[in-house]
Structures are given as structure tokens and as C-alpha cells.
């Protein structure tokens, strides 16, 4: 297990190192000039030169890369070119919202998908099964931003149950939660459609195995067999997909936060790329990469928990 963890940590570090080179190179070869973006089209040459000097854009690329990595290793991600405040402060302000959104999104995804997927499998070939399959097909086909707009029209503009967007801050917890309902639903519906289908086929496969028939034959109720004997053994593919979906949910917040104008990391990365705010984009991409790699790592650990046979292999 220690060897396994060490190997995982090494691969974690190597992945982030590779990401750091890619994001740094990409942001620096991407056409665009941070100074011109900030000062606009009427800026004079000497004002642009003064700003480039201020932002440290005149040093050679390799020097800038190592300066950036060196500082990042000590936790210093530099100062945002466009905001003029430390990147860590920008991220700190916005992280809680995006994390809340991604977590509530994954919880709703899993709850919906397990209920629908197991329900469909239990009613295999009947109307309920077809209904779930049909709805999930639609769910997969709908783009999240379009679904968001429909939700806003119905629940914010017409019924006025929830605000159409914005976030009042955690200082007002009830309003804050209300404002996260529609974004969470928009994020989770599409993902749960995918997961429900996976759950259904995985449960169906396990239901065909001999021990299930044996369990049923010993007189356990249908429901008990389904949730206590079938589901735990069907979990491995489900957890794999959940891990991948968590990554999709975190990146999906970019679209959702823009549609619901929420002040989270997704909106920050969008704004920073348009502004060619190199330090902020670099730090955010590193953060997103770290979240995805960590999610995969957690999935691996969960495998061991749900399937003890994997422990010896690890």
C-alpha cells in the first residue's frame, strides 16, 4: 500500500509538471498581448512599454517559466496582470462557490442516477425502464447551457421560485442556497442521464449472476436483494464513471457559472483567458488539473474499499 501511494504521488507530481509546461507554452504562444488588452487600442507605444516592464513580460520565456514554477512551489502564484491583486486571493474568493456547486452537482447526480438506474434495471423491459432510457437519452443530448435557460425561464422568470442568477454570498446562507439550486440541477441532470444508463446496465449484468438467483431463492425480498446484494457488486463501473464525471462537473462549472453569472472559478478562467491574464490562467489550469488528478486518485482508493480483491493487486 505504501509503495502504491508513493507511486501515485509520483505520477501526480509528473502530471502536474507536464501540465505546467503545456499551459505555460500555450498561454505564451497564443496570439494576444496582455499590455494591449489592458490599455486598449488607443494606447501609446511608451505606455505599453512601461506596462510590459511592470508586468515582467520582457524577460526571456525560459527565465519566466522557471521563475513562475519556483514561486508556485512556495505557494506564490504571482499577481494577476489584470486585477493587480495576488492570484491566490482571487482563487480564495471564488473557490468556495465552485466547490459547493461541483459537490452539490455530484451528490444530485449520484442520487438521481442510482434511483433511476436501479429502478430501470428492476423493471427491465417494462414501461418504467423504457421511460428512464428515453429520458436519459434526451438528457444526454441536451447541452447544459440550453437546459439552464429553460430552467431560468420556468423557475426564475415565470414562477419566481429561484433567482435567475447571481450569488449573494455565504453571509446569507438561505439566499445563497436558493441561488445554487438551478445551477446544480442544470449541472446534474445531464450528468445523471449518463450515469443512470451505466448504473442500469451494470445492475442488469450483476442480476444475471447465480448468487443473485440464490439470494432470491433463499427468500430475501426483491428490494433487499437489489440494494444490498446487487448494487454493491455493480459499483465498480459506476464509481469509474462518477470519477470521470466529477472532472466533467468541475469543468462544466465554466459554462454554468457564465450562464448563471456566478462569481466562481469557471467565470474567472473565462475572463482571464480573454484578458490574457497569464498568471491567473496558469494557476487556474494547474488547480483544475490537480482537482481532476485527485479525483482519479480518490476513485482508485474507493475501488479498493468496494472491491477488497483489488487490495492485494494494489
Amino acid at each position, binding site marked *: 500500500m505504501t509503495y502504491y501511494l508513493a507511486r501515485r504521488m509520483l505520477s501526480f507530481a509528473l502530471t502536474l509538471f507536464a501540465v505546467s509546461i503545456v499551459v505555460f507554452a500555450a498561454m505564451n504562444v497564443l496570439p494576444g498581448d496582455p499590455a*494591449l488588452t489592458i490599455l*486598449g487600442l488607443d494606447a501609446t507605444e511608451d505606455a505599453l512599454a512601461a506596462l510590459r516592464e511592470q508586468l515582467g513580460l520582457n524577460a526571456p520565456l525560459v527565465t519566466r517559466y522557471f521563475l513562475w514554477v519556483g514561486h508556485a512551489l512556495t505557494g506564490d502564484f504571482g499577481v494577476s496582470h*489584470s486585477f493587480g491583486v495576488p492570484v491566490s486571493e482571487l482563487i480564495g474568493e471564488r473557490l468556495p462557490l465552485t466547490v459547493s456547486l461541483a459537490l452539490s452537482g455530484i451528490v444530485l447526480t449520484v442520487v438521481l442516477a442510482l434511483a433511476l438506474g436501479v429502478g430501470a434495471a428492476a423493471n427491465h423491459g417494462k414501461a418504467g425502464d423504457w421511460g428512464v432510457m428515453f429520458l436519459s437519452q434526451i438528457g444526454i443530448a441536451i447541452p447544459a447551457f440550453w437546459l439552464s435557460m429553460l430552467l431560468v*425561464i420556468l423557475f426564475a422568470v415565470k414562477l419566481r421560485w429561484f*433567482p435567475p442568477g*447571481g450569488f449573494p454570498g455565504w453571509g446569507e446562507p438561505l439566499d445563497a442556497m436558493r441561488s445554487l439550486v438551478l445551477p446544480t440541477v442544470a449541472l446534474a441532470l445531464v450528468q445523471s442521464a449518463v450515469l443512470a444508463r451505466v448504473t442500469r446496465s451494470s445492475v442488469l449484468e450483476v442480476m444475471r449472476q447465480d448468487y443473485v438467483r440464490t439470494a432470491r431463492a433463499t427468500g430475501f425480498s426483491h428490494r433487499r436483494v437489489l440494494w444490498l446484494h446487487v448494487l454493491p457488486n455493480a459499483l465498480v463501473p459506476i464509481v469509474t464513471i462518477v470519477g470521470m464525471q466529477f472532472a466533467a462537473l468541475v469543468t462544466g462549472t465554466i459554462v454554468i457559472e457564465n450562464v448563471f453569472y456566478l462569481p466562481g472559478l469557471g467565470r474567472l478562467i473565462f475572463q482571464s483567458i480573454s484578458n490574457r491574464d497569464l498568471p491567473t490562467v496558469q494557476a487556474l489550469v494547474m488547480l483544475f488539473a490537480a482537482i481532476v488528478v485527485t479525483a482519479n486518485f480518490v476513485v482508485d482508493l474507493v475501488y479498493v474499499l468496494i472491491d477488497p480483491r483489488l487490495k492485494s493487486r494494489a
Partner: protein
Amino acid sequence: MTRLHGSFLTFAATLALGLGAGAGGALAASSIVIGLQQEPTNLDPTADATASIDGMLTQNVYESLTIVSESGEVLPALAESWTVSEDGLVYTFNLVQGAKYHDGTDFDSADVVFAFSRAMAEDSVNPSKSIFKPIDTVTAPDAHTVVITLTRKDAFFLFNMAQGDASIVAEESADGNNATPVGTGPFKFDGWTRGDRLTLVKNSDWRGAGDVALDKVEFRFISDAAAATAAMMSEELDAYPAFPAPELLPQFEADPRFKVEVGSTEGEVILAMNNSKPPFDNVEVRRAISYAINRDEIIDGAMYGQALPIGSFYPPHGPAYVDLTGLYPHDAEKAKAMFEEAGVAGTTMTLRVPPFPYATRSAEIIQAELADAGVDVKVENVEWGFWIDEIYKKKNYDMTIIAHTAPNDMGNFARGPGYFYGYDDATFTALWDEIQTEADPDKRNDLLKKGQEYLADQAVHGFLFQMPRLSVLKTGVDGFWASAPVLYQPLAGVSVN
């Protein structure tokens, strides 16, 4: 982009069908919530060109020596009066007395000297540093007088001094203005939740505070047009003064809870051509393109009819405007013959378009119109950062579509071959020098007319339309400018009933 646009239309249709009910939410009479498309990343208008900094803060939190009215007239602000010497080179400003910055420090002539020295310094990052170029010296003979001496006459000097770039910032607070703006204006900065909102509160110490109706102003940053529509419809917002989507206006016009105002801006939308690159260095080719384009069709298709056509580079609401839209009446056959004569018929031109709806929609129509005249146009949609670098900086383009939003910007055509127009014309440069230094308004207007006629004759670009200002306001919100002669919107005169 096309997909997003399609979804807006679906959204609009759904709204038009489904709505109209919804009771009006009550609102404290002294506060207002205003929607803005663009969030700035910096709150200092003397260090960042983002238009929404001026839209929120210039002449509200910050003040300048002068202020421009809705009709474009220059009025007193921190300078309560001024005199200009006979030769037009020495401006003596008498400053208001007793004004204070929001942090409690006093305003006097030393602040003016500081603000100008900072903007003109060698390491200045002022986005409009060029407006300070004619200034020779700035001195303060006493605490309430400032004397500015110019090296040459500048007809736009008082107008330029009314801009956010010329805000009078204080030495004590200037460095912190990027995040916590401090000025002398009618509203104090209250807070900024980045990515969400910015709030101002009334400054009761301001010299005209008695006439200011609003106690609190909240700006919300909503860039997506459909989201902005939903926010207005659900009455989260009281006003959206520069609404980005003309196609979504009819549902507001049909709803008694709202009013729509259509005004003008200083933004000329042009089909810019790279005059330094063949075949666009040939005036006949540029004229042929002018014949090929049909402004009415472009305005209907790209702006849903909500814009005025222009035949040169000057706004239709300006005092010196001449209507030159009839100079090259739309005639595809004539354009075709001219293209054949110039040897460009059947060739392919590239049109690189920035990611703004007015530009992407105009591009598709222009592409079809030039195809009718026998020229293939390849449309490339590019991202804004790419546009700035490849087109603006490196002049790596044939044609592009862009709105020039600055006032008095005909001087762009005198910026020489280095500017992205690639246009270098001694005749126009001499004319612009005359315009800039002509202090008499009537004579200056005559020269500006000449300038418009010359640029239209040379068909330097395809001149398309004047960008409209479309405002959606809740009924009872008064005092917003319908037209925008400058980038700011003074809120001292706005009220909510």
C-alpha cells in the same frame, strides 16, 4: 457562436409566448440595480481602458476638471470656470473650493498637478496618454487655480479633459484605485465582489448632493444576453443601459413594466480594409467594395433595423455631419464590372471577424453581397485576443469589421502606415492637423465636413452604420442618457420612482 445566437432566438420566442404575467417587485425608491455586460478587472480609469470602468465610476466616483453633457457639451466639474488665452495655448482653471476626497483628504490644485504629472510621466500607463501630449506645463499658482500651457492649439482639449483618463486622482490614494477607488464625486465606492457586483453609496458631502436622488447603486455583471433578459424579466435589475442584443428588444417593448430607449453612440462600425496590402491599396477596388455592400440589408440583418447608416467616419448626431450614404449606391453589377477592371474578379479575400454579434452577423451578409459582385470572401471568426495581436498589431488581414467607439476619432486616418488601417495619406494628415488646431467651432465643423467627404471619396473603408445605444429600463427609472457621447453615465441625475 451561431449556435448560441440560435438559442437566444429560441429563448426570446419562449419568453414572448410564456410571459407577461408576474407582479412588479417592490423596490426601495432610493436604490437601483444596473446590469452591465462587461466586468472590469481594475477600477482605475487612468490605468486600464475597459469601458465599463468609465461606465460605472467616471464622473460618479472620480471627477475630472470638466464633464461632457448628453448633447456633447463641455461643462464645469472640478473646475468651476476657466479662461483661455488669446493664442489658445494657456488654460487657467478655477477649481471648486471645499471639495474632499472620499477618504477625507482635501482636494486642491496640488491634486490636479499630481494627476497630470502621473498621466504624463515616462512610466505612465495611461491608456489615452496621447490626449496629454499637447500639454507643456501644469502649474498651480495658488490652491484653487491651475494653469495648463499647451505646445500647440488643441480643439479637443477641454473635451478630452472630461474623460476618465483625465480623472483627478489624489497622491494619497492613486495607487489603491485599482481595487478601492477614491475620488471626489457624488458617489462613494462601497464594495466589489469580483465576478458578481459592485456597489456605490451616495456621498452626502458632494457639492450638489441635494439633487442626487439615489442613495445606493448596485452594478451586476451579466455578460450573456439571454441571462440579462431573464434578470430584467424577473425584475432582479432596474436598468440595463447598454443592452447587447437588439433581437431581444421587442419583448420589452411589448411589456408595460419596461421601456426601451434607442439612442446613438460614438461608435462607427466599419468594414476595415488593409490599405497597405494589394488589392486594397487600389482605390478603385475599395470603391467597388463600397458599391457592393448594401447598408440597409446589413442593418436589418445584423442590428434588426436598430441603427443609422453612415457614409463616412463621423456620427450622424454630430454637429458637422454630412450624409454621404448616397455616394456609392448599392449596385452589384457596377461593383462586378469594377472588380473585373481591377483584375480581382474571382479572387478570394479574407474577412477576419472579432467575436461580437454585430461583427459576426454583418460578416455573413457582406460575404453574400461580395459574392453577388463576383468576389469570394472567406470569413474567419477570431477571438478578441487574437484580433488585437494579429489584426491590430501585426496588420495580418485583408478585411475586418470593427466599431470605433472613441469620440473625435477621425484622427485614426492620420495615424500613418503603422496603424492597422495601413492608410498613409499626406492630404488627410494635413487636414487633420488643421482640424485639431482650429479653435473656432464653425470653422472646425467645416473642416470636419471636408474630412468626411475626403475619406468617403477615398473609400478608405466600407462605412457601415453607427452603433446604437439600446437601453432597457424599468418604467419609473428616469435620468439615463439615451445617447452616449462619452463612455460614462453620470448617475447624479438618475432617479427611481
